[in-house]
């Protein structure tokens, strides 16, 4: 009973003369645009956009939505991505006009409610990280990495230091070396040891007076908390470098340990992972960063500050909140306006919902869920790095590949037929045929059991069935190679003419 027109493109549904949105008559004198503007500046016709009725548009996009898996509909054991439940109250509250319809260049006198929220949130981020300086401007985790590295660069520049190298772990997210490159640093890779932790000998060999920052993910992308953290802290700081913490895995350690307490000088959060912001099909996220006090003056801004009112008559005017623009030592701005405020408001609601104790329970249950899955999965899939993990673990399909020609990708594709999103595969790069599983705290034991059962069944299934999987989805195994070799990146009409 699928609507067969549902996957036609907007452009194929278009009919000349159809129209959804109309403004109607002007209530001011109309002007002759052709007289007012020079011919040089005017287009002869408006852009060739599709022409549709409102009913067309709504049915089209609603039908398309049903071709997506989502957290609202499916379990996403997607390692490194923390696909937890996205609370509905966050959406409703963030949509209040006093948050949603506020202009970014409004005067701060009309923003006291929002600025109070953002000020409190800065403080919560500082408390959870153990790092007092906070900027909420970066728009995503990778953007936070870049901003923090620019902060580090500004710090070293003021020191008169020519430290120009950033060390990243071989198990790190690809954003780490890419961010370092964009911030103007050269990158060197530090190896992982046989246990999946930082290879201390390799770290020692690569640390020198040119090292600016060591970018660490802890717990790392194998889901392991690096038990050598005190030694790493010592080594890096003795070498005069800073430690950056990739906060992608914060969901494992909330209220358990704090980056600032284990040696990090700078870090970012991913509120769209850890603090329940929805992923939106790939964004928006946010990437607030926290730094040690001596780095705070370099932070991008604006940031929120407050002044106590001596003559306050109620709680509402106890403080006046101010936006403090970047100036002097600050690196300036990394995006326009304040930041991804909507994502930050959701994070605030989430943090208020749990409170401090509740937040620790979040991480405890995330760790419990991952270890429970690990205890089941290790009976039929190799897990190269240990019996225990934090909030996620990485299995390997390497043996299955040799014995049954089943790759990590095959498993990922086949599990879709069982009604689960695939785990992350082929990451981190340090594990052959990696299958990376992160259940989060918002999945029940029943769901985890069903997932394990499905995974196990797949390892017992026939090769052919799996190689052609998925079978139940509208499409199966798209041709990625042709897509990249002969890119078709936009619709063109039947005559083959470009849409433009």
């Amino acid at each position, binding site marked *: 009973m699928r609507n067969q027109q549902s996957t036609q493109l907007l452009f194929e549904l278009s009919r000349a003369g*159809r129209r*959804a*949105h109309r*403004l109607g008559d*002007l*209530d001011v*004198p109309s002007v002759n645009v052709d007289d007012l503007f020079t011919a*040089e*500046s*005017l*287009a002869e016709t*408006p852009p*060739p956009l599709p022409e*549709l009725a409102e009913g067309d548009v709504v049915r*089209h*996009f609603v039908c398309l939505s049903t071709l997506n898996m*989502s*957290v609202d509909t*499916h379990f996403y054991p997607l390692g490194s991505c923390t696909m937890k439940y996205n609370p509905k109250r966050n959406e409703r509250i963030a949509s209040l*006009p*006093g*948050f949603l*319809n506020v*202009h970014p260049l409004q005067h701060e*006198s009309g923003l006291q*409610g929002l600025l109070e929220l953002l000020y409190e949130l800065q403080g919560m981020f500082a408390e*959870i990280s153990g790092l007092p300086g906070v900027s909420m401007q970066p*728009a995503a*985790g*990778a953007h936070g*990495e870049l901003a923090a590295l620019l902060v580090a660069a500004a710090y070293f520049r003021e020191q008169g230091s020519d430290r120009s190298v950033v060390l990243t772990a071989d198990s790190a997210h690809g954003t780490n070396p890419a961010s*370092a*490159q964009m911030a103007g640093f050269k990158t060197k890779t530090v190896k992982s040891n046989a246990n999946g932790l930082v290879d201390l000998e390799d770290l020692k060999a690569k640390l020198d007076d040119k090292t600016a920052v060591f970018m660490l993910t802890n717990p790392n992308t194998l889901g392991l908390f690096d038990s050598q953290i005190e030694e790493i802290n010592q080594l890096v700081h003795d070498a005069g470098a800073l430690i950056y913490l990739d906060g992608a895995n914060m969901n494992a350690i909330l209220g*358990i340990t704090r980056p600032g307490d284990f040696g990090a000088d700078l870090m970012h959060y991913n509120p769209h992972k850890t603090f329940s912001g929805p*992923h939106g*099909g*790939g*964004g*928006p996220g946010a990437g607030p960063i926290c730094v040690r006090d001596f780095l705070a003056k370099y932070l991008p801004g604006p940031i929120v500050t407050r002044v106590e009112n001596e003559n306050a008559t109620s709680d509402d005017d106890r403080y006046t909140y101010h936006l403090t623009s970047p*100036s002097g030592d600050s690196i300036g701005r990394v*995006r*326009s306006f304040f930041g991804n405020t*909507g994502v930050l408001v959701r994070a605030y609601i989430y943090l*208020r*919902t*749990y409170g401090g104790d*509740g937040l620790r329970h979040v991480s*405890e249950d995330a760790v419990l869920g991952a*270890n*429970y899955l690990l205890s*089941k999965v290790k009976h039929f899939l190799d897990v190269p790095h240990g019996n*225990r993990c934090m909030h996620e673990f990485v299995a390997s399909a390497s043996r299955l590949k040799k014995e049954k020609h089943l790759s990590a990708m095959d498993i990922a*594709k086949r599990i879709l037929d069982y009604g689960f999103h695939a785990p992350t595969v082929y990451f981190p790069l340090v594990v052959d045929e990696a299958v990376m599983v992160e259940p989060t705290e918002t*999945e029940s034991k029943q769901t985890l059991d069903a997932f394990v059962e499905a995974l196990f069944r797949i390892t017992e299934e026939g090769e052919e069935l799996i190689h052609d999987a998925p079978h139940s989805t509208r499409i199966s195994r*798209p041709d990625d190679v*042709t*897509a990249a070799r002969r890119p*078709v*990146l*936009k619709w063109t009409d039947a005559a083959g003419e470009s849409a433009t």
Partner: protein
Amino acid sequence: MSYLFHTDEDRREMLKSIGAESIDEIINDQVPEAVRLKRPLNLPPACNELALTAEMTRLAARNASADSHVCFLGGGAYDHFIPAAVDEIASRGEYYTSYTPYQAEVSQGNLQVMFEYETLVTQLTGLGVSNASLYDGGSAATEAVLMALSMQRGRNKVITTDVVHPQYRDILVAYLKNIDAELVVVPSDENGHSKPMIDAIDDKTACVLIQHPNFVGQLESVSEIAAAAKEAGALTIQVFDPVSLGRLKRPGDMGVDIAIAEGQSLGNPLAYGGPYLGIMACRDELVRRLPGRIAGQTTDRRGKRCWVLTLQTREQHIRREKATSNICSNQTLLALRATVHLSLLGPEGLKETADHCIAKTAYAKEVIAKSERFEVVGEGPSLKEFVVRDLGADVAGLLAHAREQGLLAGIDMTPMCVGGSEASEPAVALPSRYEQCFLVAVTEKRSRVEIDRWANVLCEAPSMATV
């Protein structure tokens, strides 16, 4: 508690399977004693949905919004109308709670939307190829500059002018500080036009960055500047306003190589500055240097047309330090909103929106100019934004007075001018001729009644100086 699932019984069974006595045992096995937090986090106590909703509603009500006030603010974010269908579609959980479409088979909805978005952006801009979105207009402008620098080896000069959005220039300054690039900010002429930049273009110039219409609402000579850049072997990057393209020539039709925009105007709420939508399109030849995700068309194993993320060898998760950019997450949900919005508008709706902006802006200019206190700054027509000088030299007081009357009447430009509190360095400042001026935006949403009231309130405001 809140969104957690496990009962005590569940936890016992799970621990048994793990072979651990407690969750603490699992954690303490890995996290060294010395670095463990030995006290609860100092956060406000847990709050239930009912109480939190009430508290947040009170907090939200303390903000002036485009609902409680009449909004004449612009400067890169605009109070345009958003049809209900945009909100309805974007609030479907299948869209907003889904992940990046790496698993194409279960993400065809998002992938097709991305492909449609890319096509719409190419139709809008007249350029050959678009990515699937970047963070916002400001950072997209800088990404475009980095893209141009990476393509133009041996050229390290970036030329822009002092009427490009000050915050966009601020981002550029921050990003360029640690790499081998020289930023040249050429002063605009007395009318706020950027043509003088042409003389600064030389054989070391990698790209020129212009905004059209620019920050002060003036139209630029885009074709002429682009032609001069091309002759010198430099690329032209234009910041455009999507709504303006209902009437103005498209970037691709004026010789522009990379076009970028803030896509907030296309169906996205003001949201105090974010999340917004960075639009970026470029000529076909530049596609391999384009940052961000791209969706492309292909076929599946049964020959069915479908969509996938493609050209991923540009991206950080494959290429690491050799990637075109570090960008990972983008703004898919906002790109969805823009896609729905443009589908609802179509060519005639976009044109009508631009026409209404033009007519209402012309009317606002006319009524404000009737007062001797005010002077419209700059010649020529406006799309939806213009500058007003307060000859009473009290813009801050004037705008505060208007706020008390329920009007967000304009943006004070004085702090953005040379030496002002928001001009962190000369490269970021507006020319001093905009001191005691304010920037006004009039969208299709503003009614004649609202515009008349705006003019009346401003004209009747007390002034510090005698006019």
